């Protein structure tokens, strides 16, 4: 088995009487595409937010690339090599596509003061152009991000997550609201990136076809706890998973 890049131990989060995440532990291995699925209200998003510094868990710890990442702010987690996308559209609408991508990489170049006195693009335009081409957004490079279609903004959001060369990319419902053609292209690009760069992915998604055809391993969450783990084939035939989804 490959190296562990993320280790989640006994993470719990409670909101009043609701146990949103209940003592969840799992590991993420280098180069894998891990799917995290579960019915609505199963605690996926809360768990994601706990891992990504948006929500402070009540208990538990997270280790990323050998560093204790518990309680770190999202910006520090990003510096540790975590890229992420959001469920809602999260681009900067009044900045061009190019500026969105450069912003996603600039904080990893030089110190705060060298960035003030250095080149306006922090020397990132060629790298940003490569990524824009990879996601086939060249024709929109100089457009305002807010003028792009929903699916194009989702692609841009994903491209931004890749700009800083992260070791782990966490994708929060990347397929939501994206048409089938674009979704197919997006999936193919994720696979290519995974193969070419060895980047690890953790994907939260409702679209079963997308998860089962993309992921190498799947975790199933129900009522805040992990109820199943395995390959996509194993998960699809797991009675507990079927019951959780169908309310059996």
């Amino acid at each position, binding site marked *: 088995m490959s190296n562990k890049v993320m280790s989640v131990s006994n993470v719990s989060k409670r909101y009043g009487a609701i146990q949103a995440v209940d003592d969840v532990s799992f590991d993420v291995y280098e180069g894998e595409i891990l799917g995290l699925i579960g019915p609505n209200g199963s605690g996926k998003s809360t768990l994601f937010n706990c891992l*990504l510094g*948006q929500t402070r868990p009540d208990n538990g710890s997270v280790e990323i690339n050998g560093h204790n990442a518990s309680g770190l*702010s*999202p*910006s520090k*987690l*990003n*510096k540790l090599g975590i890229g*992420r996308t*959001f469920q809602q559209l*999260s*681009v*900067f*609408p*009044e*900045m061009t596509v190019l*500026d969105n991508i*450069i*912003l*996603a990489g*600039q*904080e*990893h170049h030089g110190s*705060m003061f060298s*960035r*003030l*006195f*250095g080149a*306006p*693009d*922090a020397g990132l335009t060629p790298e940003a152009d490569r990524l824009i081409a990879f996601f*086939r*957004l060249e*024709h*929109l*490079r*100089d*457009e305002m991000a807010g*003028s*792009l*279609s929903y*699916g*194009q903004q989702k*692609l841009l959001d994903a491209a*931004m997550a890749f*700009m*800083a060369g992260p070791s782990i990319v966490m994708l929060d419902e990347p397929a939501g609201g994206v048409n089938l*053609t*674009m979704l197919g*292209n997006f999936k193919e690009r994720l696979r290519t990136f995974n193969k070419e760069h060895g980047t690890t992915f953790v994907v939260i998604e409702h679209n079963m076809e997308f998860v089962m055809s993309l992921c190498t391993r799947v975790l199933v969450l129900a009522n805040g706890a992990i109820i199943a783990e395995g390959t996509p084939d194993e998960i699809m035939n797991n009675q507990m998973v079927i019951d959780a989804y169908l309310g059996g």
Partner: protein
Amino acid sequence: MMTKRNMWLLAGLIALILAPLGQGNYVVYTLCSWLIFSMAAMGLNLTLGYAGQISLAQSAFMAIGAYTTALLTLPPAEDGVGGLGLHWLVAMPISVFAAFVVGLIIGFPALRVKGHFLAFVTLAFTTLTFLVLRNEDWLTGGTYGLVGMPRPDFGFFNTGKQLRFYYFTLAVFVVFCLLMWGIIRSPWGRAFKALRENSIRAESLGVDTRRITLLAFAIGSAAGGLAGSLVAPLVQFIEPGSFALVHSLKMLLMVVVGGAGFFFGPVIGAGVVILMPEFLRFTEGYYLMIYAATVIVLIIFCPKGLIGLGEIIRNKLRKDKKVRGDMDKGAQL
């Protein structure tokens, strides 16, 4: 080859150089005020227009700049409030630094509160500053204020006369614009905009939103301090009322009317707020009403300010209609 934008900038600069020629002292004084308030409003534009942090404290930062400069440049007095008799070139950086540090401190509440709550915090700071200036008369002269701040003398160029002080202010204005432009187009400027548009996303991309928020306040406040540092020798009389809340509101108006988030928006806004009432004086008692009505109409019909209005008109007049990059090829994605 000079770009169209640079040609416009050059034309603007030439217009600013020619504007006071042949004019009386009052007109030159008004033009000086316009440039000085433009700088303060550009500072506020960085905090509000670019970084999205509302502030009603810009007049307080002007006060810090003006009083610091006054106390440092006034000659020592045997009785009453005197100063240290330093040159403006020494007093100005100290004044700007003082405003920067206080702005940094005022930025801390912005890490916890947003929107109208933040507006109230900064409003309270302006009121507090006003009260300190009024009550601590051993230092500030209280309601009588401070009088007789010298205008800077550079040996080869004495700014004592109104026209000379105008050109001195214009030189400071040009240097200030270059510095601000450098900040706005740097990665810092991009981070300020990201903070305004989506702070959670910005943080997830490694932007230290705490630091950027504090810097947005501190740099904007420093610009207010610089403006204050020029007001003291321009007017040669300052008192707490010169920096009351109404002046913060005026600067907010300058930013909004000119176009928040546009580099030269506040310069145009300051022109409207300071120069338009002068142009409307011929209407006698009606000028304030006409002025207020114009501002209301402008804000309702053009929320992006006068620069935004200019963009709308320019787009309407364009013969070659621009389409989004993918529309001429059909949606490929």
